[in-house]
């Protein structure tokens, strides 16, 4: 068994962990780093539940081999709030009832953050396509799209 020592900046902190060379970043984050907010829904990049920002880009952690992140920067849902202060997206998801079971929520929050970081004023259609890589089976997406619209508006006015 070959476990590689990997160092990456995760949610602002330098973190060391060991991972099998062929294992996914998703398994490494969950099993080795303890960040179980990153969820597995499919393991094949089709559901977006494991969405993280890897070197600032939205990525499915299940499609990344753990050794690829050596020296890289990762932000997960656990790193979205600024200390005790929730990100506007988190606040708007809460207030807008944009989650039911909550399993897809971490992935949606990361995908929505990636969208708003590059496009602070997206149309409904742009939001829907930007979130198309994230599956939700509970909400029908209505309240998620509205929460992202509301968060975008709050961020623009802030």
């Amino acid at each position: 068994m070959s476990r590689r020592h990997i160092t990456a900046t995760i949610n602002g902190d330098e973190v060391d962990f060991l991972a099998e060379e062929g294992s996914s970043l998703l398994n490494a984050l969950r099993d080795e780093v303890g960040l179980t907010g990153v969820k597995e829904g499919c393991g094949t990049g089709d559901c977006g539940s494991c969405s993280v920002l890897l070197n600032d880009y939205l990525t499915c952690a299940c499609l990344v081999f753990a050794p690829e992140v050596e020296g890289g920067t990762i932000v997960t849902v656990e790193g979205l709030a600024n200390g005790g202060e929730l990100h506007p997206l988190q606040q708007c998801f809460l207030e807008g009832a944009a989650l039911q079971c909550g399993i897809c929520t971490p992935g949606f929050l990361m995908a929505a953050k990636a969208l708003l970081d590059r496009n602070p004023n997206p149309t409904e259609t742009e939001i829907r396509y930007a979130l198309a890589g994230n599956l939700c089976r509970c909400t029908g997406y209505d309240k998620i799209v509205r929460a992202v619209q509301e968060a975008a508006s709050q961020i623009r006015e802030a």
Partner: protein
Amino acid sequence: MAVIEENPGYKWVGTRPIRPDGLEKITGKAQFGADSILPGMLYGSVVRSPHAHARILSIDMSVAKSMPGVKAVITSADFPDLALNGGSAGDIDMSNNVMARAKVLYEGHVVAAVAANTREQAKAAADAVIVNYEVLPHVLTVDEAMADNAPLLHDGMYTKGIDPKPEKPSNVASRVVHERGDLDKGFAEADLVIEREYTTKPVHQGYIEPHAAVADANSDGRAHIWCSSQGHFQMRAHTATVLGVSPGTIKVTAAEIGGGFGGKTVVYLEPLAVRLSQRAGRPVKLVMDRDEVFRASGPTSGTRIKVKMGVTNEGQLTAADVWMGYEAGAFSGSPVGAAGMTVIACYDIPNFFVEGFDVVVNKPRVAAYRAPGAPMAAFAVETVMDELARGINIDPIDLRLQNAVVEGTQASYGPKFPRIGFVETLEAIKNHPQYTAELGPNQGRGVAAGFWFNAGMNSSATVHINENGTATVVVGSPDIGGSRQSMALMAAEELGISYENIKPVVADTETVGFNDVTGGSRVTLATGAAVVDACRVITADLRARAAKTWDVEIDDVEWVDGQAQHVDGSQPPLSLADLAGKSGRTGGPISATASLNARGVGAAFSTQLCDVEVDPETGITRVIRYVSAQDAGRAISPAYVEGQMQGGVAQGIGWALNEEYIHNSSGVMENASFLDYRIPVASDLPMIDTVIVEVPNPAHPYGVRGVGEVGIVPPMAAVANAISDAAGVRMKDLPMSPVKLLEALNEKGK
């Protein structure tokens, strides 16, 4: 938008505060099924059948057992054979579904399981288990299974519900019938009779969280399971049955559940995880891969349904003749019974004959899926209704209004309806601006309705008043979509304290009384009623304590706005905090438990309006506008009522347009991934407008009916009727995929 029949002036019920468990779920702290990590935990992997139907000749585990890190390998030999121990037929089926015994009955059926130090070792060991099969001929559909001389799944299956008992076994587990009046007379009275035949494919609940269980077994026979399910008491009972032990030896802690929709009411992994943990002496985690979820859990039935209905030129339904065959998967138990009860339950039809068959096939055993059985039946009947309305040139909502069941109507399945809100949902859609909005080229509009009973069943709740006057509400119903919030809102209303001062908790099987599953749209109704009962015991107790404090009779004390007040105002009021702080002097801690079997279930109706646009050259259908009107009884938590309505519609649109199990001729599922099993993505759907209709259920303290399920009943017919309006073709087979729609358009163009 809500149609409020009356406003009783609630302070908390009907508001939209932040849900109690929200923060954990938007920060990644919430612990779902696969999130538990125990010291020394092993990873499990499951060996599954590659064949749809085969006899297991031998299983060679020797190589797997000798591989690095492997701690346990189990097969059916590690479980009691319930057939030899006097187990019920249902228990034997359940056990054989968890782990195949003599035969595998579907691709994905479990034949062995392993536990090892790492995931990779477990997977490698599972791959090294050698199973020898004798492949048998298989059946995949109702037609194949019911054919003469069809291969049999179960040699001892004789159709129930046929008198006399059939002489030969078959793949038909049972037959159900509902009938009234004189069918021939009814059709003779009709001016227009429409007769159609429909098929639907198995579809999966599609929860995003795969099944997961962690078990830690002790050497004394006790075990602790952490799993995501719709009912941890059910998981306890079923696991105990499969393992042949007392439920009291098993403790189940409910993890947060990442969606279920009925599909997480069944044990798959839990008994395997416990047995592996016992054999290995270490905790074991088992998590399904997505393809295992598709191949071996869920789905709901594929069906063949024939409907013949008659109507007079004046719009009076005269007769309905319905034939339904529902695939059960590998073991009996399709929802054809519920289908038979719901199929024409929206309408008062004097003459009908409804016949249904529960048919086993070599596919995964079906599990409940949101209003189980009703959506496919409604697809058939509600599209016939649309044809009837157009045939006699009457507005489709008016036809439904004219024949709608109301309070006092004898339901097609038996009882008289109490107060119900079907007519109100029809009127809500008729009055919605979308009903008369202009349609563009290639656009069309469809309406459909649906019915679901809702369930009551058993619930328990305990309410503790903390020393500062805040409250803890302890329930045993897993919160699948916001039920903690509705519990807290009702408790706040009863206790007269702030919602924020109430902490709802979903407790494990050893910490709260028994609860049936979170299903049947029952939790807000039944567990809510238990919470209300417990709160009322507490407020009575609080009044007694105030009476004692003031040395007056209890009848002189009222509980108003969270305070004990003397009826004549002669005493300064005592708040809950006052009473709680001094509870030691008035009889000790304040707490109450209520357990009940919920009666007075309120039936739910939904009417939905769908606008589509069809590309006539490619057969692509896009849903462009959608409204759902549903009778919630009373919306305790309107934001989450809307969420249930929208979610049901979205699943229904997926079922209508793209979702299906695709099996090849060998009985192997070809699209066991979210890439090829196409549930709707955000860009596939429009905003889904909701109209919460509130016709309170008179039998519930807050008028609750239950809202989780009926929303998925109308969408397939609503979409089909809209497609017909847009493109002039009647789609009778689900899904209405681009391939099928273009075929139909080509046929029409000939």
